[in-house]
């Protein structure tokens, strides 16, 4: 009778011990921490509770084809990162079939199989952990039937993991799986937060630039309107109608300029919010460029700049009309702005297989290396006044680069203060023609 009572007492004590372990493990598992910390914490607890000298946690890749060692206990650090395909070895098989395996007397059993099969040379897959393990238990950690990780423990001794240990580990498997999943989510959330912060910072810079442009760069043209209206009033009172006529021309130009700036601003803000929709069509290059040059005819004539087009009549490209027009408008207006009186601008086009190279070569004031290197950057952009104090917003070239990319093209610039600037554009040719 007393033996039975003793047995019952011992069972009760064992149950209490297990409850205590579960309580401790649950507490640890519920703490929010990164994945590597979580995995090491789990192995440390298991080592303490089960006295296991060697244990590993392996995590499957997204395709569930290979397991990688993410955490280890009792091995040297080179084991981290080691891989085993699902289905291979005791660990791989447990993961593939989502079932636990508990084996002991492994070496004799392997020897037996090897001896009796006698099918060619013994070709043993290198085990991921100990080369001479006698006992090994592999427990797949599942959450909603999805394989989150595999826990493996092994020993050089026989019969280390009895049925009770096995059952206990299986009981812990699900909360372990959920806990590991939480850490993975935590890590990926941290990553997302980093990305969002970077994105927000970028948008913030954009917003700052936007306000800066509105407050500085547009004020100029608007202020000049004020001067012009005062002059109108003055000449009207004086009855000087010729001067009024010339003022009208100036107003026209100013308005054009302002229009150009506002269009750029609108385009740029749209591109920042990804509002630009490209519609690719066949464009006859010569006509296209010709029409844009005509927009600036007044400025070209007033500065006596020699503009020449060397573009084949039949040359066609595939591009989005609106964004390409913005590219050329900005480049041509820049050339005119920075080319001194009686300078020249040659726009030429050549083909090379299925691309078209367009070159805009001016005899303008050019740029030094420092300026050239920050040409397409928003940060580095400070508006530069033209040779006759023409104004700009500094957005032009930023837009040009973005819009060239939208049109599946490229841009490169060569420049020096002596010979001027050459802009080379690469665009897809319409090869069906």
């Amino acid at each position, binding site marked *: 009778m007393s033996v039975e009572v003793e047995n019952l007492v011992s069972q009760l004590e064992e149950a209490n011990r297990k409850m205590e372990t579960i309580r401790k493990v649950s507490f640890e598992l519920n703490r929010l921490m990164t994945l590597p910390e979580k995995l090491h914490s789990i192995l440390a607890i298991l080592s303490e509770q089960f006295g296991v000298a060697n244990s590993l946690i392996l995590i499957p890749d997204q395709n569930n084809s290979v397991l990688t060692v993410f955490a280890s206990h009792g091995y040297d650090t080179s084991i981290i990162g080691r891989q085993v395909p699902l*289905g*291979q*070895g*005791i660990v*791989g*098989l*447990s993961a593939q*079939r989502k*079932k636990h*395996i508990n*084996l*002991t*007397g*492994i070496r*004799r*059993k*392997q020897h*037996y*199989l*090897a001896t009796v*099969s006698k*099918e060619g040379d*013994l*070709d*043993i*897959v290198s*085990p991921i952990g100990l080369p001479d393990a*006698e006992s090994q238990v592999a427990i797949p950690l599942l959450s909603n039937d999805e394989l989150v990780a595999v826990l493996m423990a092994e020993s050089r001794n*026989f*019969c280390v993991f*009895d*049925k009770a240990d096995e059952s206990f580990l299986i009981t812990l498997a699900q909360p372990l799986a959920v806990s590991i999943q939480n850490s993975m989510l935590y890590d990926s959330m941290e990553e997302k937060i980093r990305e969002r912060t970077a994105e927000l910072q970028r948008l913030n810079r954009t917003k700052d630039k936007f306000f800066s442009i509105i407050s500085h760069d547009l004020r100029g043209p608007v202020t000049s309107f004020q001067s012009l209206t005062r002059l109108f009033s003055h000449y009207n009172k004086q009855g000087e109608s010729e001067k009024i006529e010339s003022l009208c021309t100036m107003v026209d130009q100013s308005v054009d300029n302002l229009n150009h700036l506002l269009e750029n601003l609108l385009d740029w803000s749209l591109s920042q919010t990804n509002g630009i929709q490209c519609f690719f069509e066949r464009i006859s290059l010569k006509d296209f460029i010709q029409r844009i040059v005509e927009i600036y005819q007044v400025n070209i004539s007033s500065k006596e700049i020699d503009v020449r087009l060397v573009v084949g009549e039949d040359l066609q490209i595939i591009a989005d009309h609106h964004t390409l027009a913005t590219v050329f408008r900005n480049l041509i207006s820049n050339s005119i702005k920075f080319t001194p009186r009686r300078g020249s601008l040659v726009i030429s086009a050549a083909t090379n297989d299925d691309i078209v190279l367009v070159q805009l070569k001016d005899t303008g004031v050019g740029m030094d290396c420092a300026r050239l290197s920050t040409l397409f950057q928003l940060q580095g952009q400070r508006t530069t006044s033209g040779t006759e104090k023409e104004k700009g917003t500094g957005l032009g070239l930023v837009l040009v680069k973005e819009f060239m990319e939208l049109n599946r093209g490229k841009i490169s610039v060569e420049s020096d203060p002596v010979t001027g600037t050459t802009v080379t554009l690469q665009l897809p040719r319409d090869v069906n023609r």
Partner: protein
Amino acid sequence: MNDPQVKLEEIMPALQGVIPAIVATSSLARIPNATYISQVYYVDGNHVALSYQFFNKTIRNVRENPILVTIVTCPVEYVLHKLTLRYVESQTSGEVFDNMSMQLDALAIVQHKEGIFKLKAADIYEVISIEKI
């Protein structure tokens, strides 16, 4: 000997296949047969299983005379226990079969021999008595 009946759970280490077990059977004609097997598998408190991989005298005997006696050795204490068993049935599916099959696969796979060692069935035996010898 007045030892209380040994329970199967008490000799679990001997049922892990660490040390092979000897199995003795008898034909209907009373010819005894002895053979080594790799492992006597624990099923539950009253049952064990032996793996059936290829047809042999033991299987043949048990099908006509269901009593089988095996001696298992504990790899920790090196104590011997004699189990008297009665053949119940042969299972080719179910949890016992799957577990035994997977253990075999786990070992064979390490040697790239998955196809060679296939479990034909899990032979289930009722435990009639367990005796420490």
